[in-house]
C-alpha cells in the first residue's frame, strides 16, 4: 500500500509523494539566493569545493537563458541542464514568433509547465530542481521568480533555495529594506551577506551574478566578491563597536 511507487497516484490524504521527495532532493542541493533590487537583480550560489584535479569552470550553476533573463537552481544538476536547454530554446522561439524578448514571467510559466507535465505523466519522475529566475522585462521592470518541482511558481522580492534555505530566508526577511534596494551595491551586499550566513569559509565559496537594466548578465570575479566581503566585514565590525559603546 505504498503511494510513492508511481508518480500518477495520489495518496489517500492528497499527497503526491514523488513530488515531495523531489522537494527533499532540492533541499540537499547547494544554496542559491536571489535578490531583486530596483535597478539590479542578483543571484548568488554556494560553490562546492572542487577536487584538486577538477577544473572548476565546468561547474556553473548560474545560467543565462537570454540577454535579459538568467537563472540559478538547487538540486539535481543533470535535471537542471535539461530544463535550462528547453528554456533557452523557448526564449529564441518566442523571439522568432513574437519578435520580442520573453518576459521573466513568461519563461517562468514555461519552465513551470514543463515541470508540471512531468508530475502528471506515467513512467516519468518530476525534475529534482527548484530554480530562481531573475531578469528584466522589455519595459524595464525587474522580476524574481521561484519555481519548484511541483510546477508552481511565485514572485519574490528576495528568496533562497537549497540547503539551509530556511535560515537564509529568515535572514533576508530580517534584513531586506525597501530603501536599500535603490542602491545597486546594497542589493549585492544583501545577497552576499545572506549567503555568508550558511557558506563556510567566506568569499571563496560564493559565485555571484548580477544584471543591471539594459545590460547583460555579469558574473563577478573572485576579486570583486572579496571586495564586497571585506566591506561587509568592516560594516559588521563597526556595528559591533557601536553596540559595545551604547
Amino acid at each position: 500500500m505504498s503511494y510513492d511507487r508511481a508518480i500518477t497516484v495520489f495518496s489517500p490524504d492528497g499527497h503526491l509523494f514523488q513530488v515531495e521527495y523531489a522537494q527533499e532532493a532540492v533541499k540537499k542541493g547547494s544554496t542559491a539566493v536571489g535578490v531583486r533590487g530596483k535597478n539590479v537583480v542578483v543571484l548568488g550560489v554556494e560553490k562546492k569545493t572542487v577536487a584538486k584535479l577538477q577544473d572548476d569552470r565546468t561547474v556553473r550553476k548560474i545560467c543565462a537563458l537570454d540577454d535579459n533573463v538568467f537563472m540559478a537552481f538547487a538540486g539535481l544538476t543533470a535535471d537542471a541542464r535539461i530544463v535550462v536547454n528547453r528554456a533557452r530554446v523557448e526564449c529564441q522561439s518566442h523571439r522568432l514568433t513574437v519578435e520580442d524578448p520573453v518576459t521573466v514571467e513568461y519563461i517562468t510559466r514555461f519552465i513551470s509547465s514543463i515541470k508540471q507535465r512531468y508530475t502528471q505523466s506515467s513512467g516519468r519522475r518530476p525534475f529534482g530542481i527548484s530554480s530562481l529566475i531573475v531578469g528584466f522585462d522589455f519595459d524595464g521592470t525587474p522580476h524574481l521568480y521561484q519555481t519548484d518541482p511541483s510546477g508552481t511558481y511565485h514572485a519574490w522580492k528576495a528568496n533562497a533555495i537549497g540547503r539551509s534555505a530556511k535560515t537564509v530566508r529568515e535572514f533576508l526577511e530580517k534584513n531586506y529594506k525597501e530603501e536599500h534596494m535603490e542602491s545597486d551595491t546594497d542589493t549585492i551586499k544583501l545577497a552576499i551577506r545572506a549567503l555568508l550566513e550558511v557558506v563556510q569559509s567566506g568569499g571563496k565559496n560564493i559565485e555571484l551574478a548580477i544584471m543591471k537594466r539594459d545590460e547583460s548578465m555579469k558574473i563577478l570575479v573572485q576579486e570583486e566578491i572579496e571586495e564586497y566581503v571585506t566591506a561587509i566585514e568592516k560594516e559588521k565590525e563597526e556595528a559591533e563597536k557601536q553596540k559595545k559603546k551604547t
Partner: protein
Amino acid sequence: MALANVLQSESVDFSNYGRKCRGFTSSLYETELGLESVGGDNLSFAVRTACSDGDGSERKIQFLHGTTTLAFKFQHGVIVAVDSRATAGAYIASQTVKKVIEINPYLLGTMAGGAADCSFWERLLARQCRVYELRNKERISVAAASKLLANMVYQYKGMGLSMGTMVCGWDKTGPGLYYVDSEGNRVCGDLFAVGSGSMYAYGIVDSGLKQKDLTVEEACDLGCRAIYQATYRDAYSGGQVNLYHVHSEGWNRVSQSDVLLLHQQYQAEKA
C-alpha cells in the same frame, strides 16, 4: 483533416515550439521545419486537395482577386480603405462585401483573394490573439499577430490557399501595418495596396502622402479618394468605400460611401 488538427491541438502555441525544435539540427536543412512545430501528434500535413483530375494535375479554384484594398500609416495611426465589389469572371456577384475583418477592438485585417480563406484564417487569428491576451495579460503586438497568421498559412503553402491581407493595428510601439499573404510573405511597411485596382490606388496615395503631417480628416479623404479612383478605372472594384481609422484607443469605422455619390461629389468640386 488538417483543419481538425489545427483546431484541436494547441497549435501555434509557443510551448509546442520548444518541444518540437529540440534536437533539430538535422531538420534545419529540411523544409518541413514549419510543419513539424504544429500538431502534438506528428501527423503529416500532406493533405491533397480533393479537386485533382485523374491525371494528377490539380484544377485551380477560381478566386475573386478583383478588389482594391489599401492601408497606410500616418502620424495619427493607420487608415484602412477598401472597396466592396466581388466578381466571378465578368459577373458582379456582390456590391456590398465587407472586406475589412475586425479581428479585435484594436486589430483590423483586410481581405483580398479568396474570401473564405481570408475570413476563416483571420477569425482563427482572432482566437489566437485572444488566447495570447489571456495568457500574457497584455495585448498582442501587431508584429506578433501578423507572424502568427503568416506561420499558420505557411503550413498550407502550395495547397491552394489564396489570401493577401494587411494586418493593421496599434500596439505599444505605435501604429503597425503588415502585409501577409498565402505565399508566405510577411512585410512591414508604411503603405500597402492590394488587388487588381492597387496600381491606381498607389498613384493617388503616393502623390497625396508627399505632404508630411496629415490630419485625420485629410488622411481619411486621401484613402477615400484613392479607392474611388481605383474603382473608377478598375472594372473589378466598385460598390462602396469602407473607411476605418486605427488609433491608440483602437479602431473606428469612419465612413461608408457609395462610389457613385463620391463620383458626383468630386465632379462637382472640379467644376
